[in-house]
C-alpha cells in the first residue's frame, strides 16, 4: 500500500456547470487526476428569498482534489482562477490538511474521453 503524507485537500463549492471544465484543466495543465465531483444544494443568506425561511436554494457542484503539500498553494490559486471564484455568487474554495493519502493513478494508455 503506497501511502504519502504532507498532502492537502482542496474543496471548491461552485455554481452548476463549471466543475467539469476545472477538472479538465487540472488534468491537462497540472496533470492532476485525483479530483472528484459531487452535486449539492446551496443555501445562501444574502438572497432575495431569505426572508421566507431558509433562503433561496441553488444547485451546486462540489469539487474535491487531493494535492501534494508543496504544490497546494499554486493549485489553490489555479482553481481559484479557473473556476472564476472572484465574482459575486462565484462560489467558495477552502483547503485542509490530510494526514495520509493513498496513491492514485490512472492506467497507462487510457484513451481520452470524447
Amino acid at each position, binding site marked *: 500500500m503506497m501511502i504519502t503524507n504532507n498532502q492537502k485537500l482542496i474543496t471548491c463549492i461552485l455554481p452548476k456547470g463549471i466543475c467539469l471544465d476545472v477538472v479538465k484543466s487540472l488534468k491537462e495543465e497540472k496533470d492532476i487526476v485525483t479530483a472528484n465531483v459531487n452535486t449539492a444544494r446551496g443555501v445562501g443568506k444574502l438572497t432575495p428569498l431569505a426572508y421566507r425561511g431558509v*433562503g433561496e436554494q441553488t444547485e451546486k457542484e462540489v469539487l474535491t482534489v487531493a494535492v501534494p503539500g508543496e504544490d497546494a498553494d499554486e493549485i489553490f490559486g489555479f482553481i481559484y482562477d479557473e473556476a472564476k471564484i472572484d465574482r459575486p455568487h462565484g462560489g467558495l474554495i*477552502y483547503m485542509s*490538511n490530510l494526514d495520509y493519502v493513498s496513491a492514485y493513478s490512472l492506467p497507462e494508455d487510457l484513451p481520452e474521453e470524447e
Partner: protein
Amino acid sequence: MSKRDITVLTDVSLITCIVQRGIADTIVKAAQEAGAQGATVHYAHGEGVRERLGILALAVEVDKEVINVVVAKDQADRIFERMYIAGNLDTPGMGFIYLTPLEKAATYIPREIAEKLEQEEAETKSAALSN
C-alpha cells in the same frame, strides 16, 4: 501562481453534520440564525446503529443529508452548539456533527469590505505598536 491577488481567509472552520433525510433545512436555519452565511447540503446513504433500533430496524432513516457550513473560528462554537440542539443530536440515531479546522479559504469579497478590513487591521497594528 494565481493571476490575481487572492484575499485569503485563515481563521475558518468547517462544520459537517450528518442527519436523517428531511432534517437538514431545520439545522441550516438554526446555523443561519447563529451567524452562518450559507450551507451546502448533499444526500448520502448511511449504515450503522439503525440496524439495532426500532421495529424491523426501520426507526432510523437510511437516507442521510450531509450539511457543510464554513464559519469563522470565533463563531464556530456557537453555530456548532445551535446545530447540535436543532438536530437533537443527543438522541441516539439522529446523526452526528464534527468540526474540521481549515488552513485557508477564499471567496469573492467586495472591494469596499476588503479595504475596510485592511484599514481596521492597520489601525489595530499601529495601536499595538504605540502601546
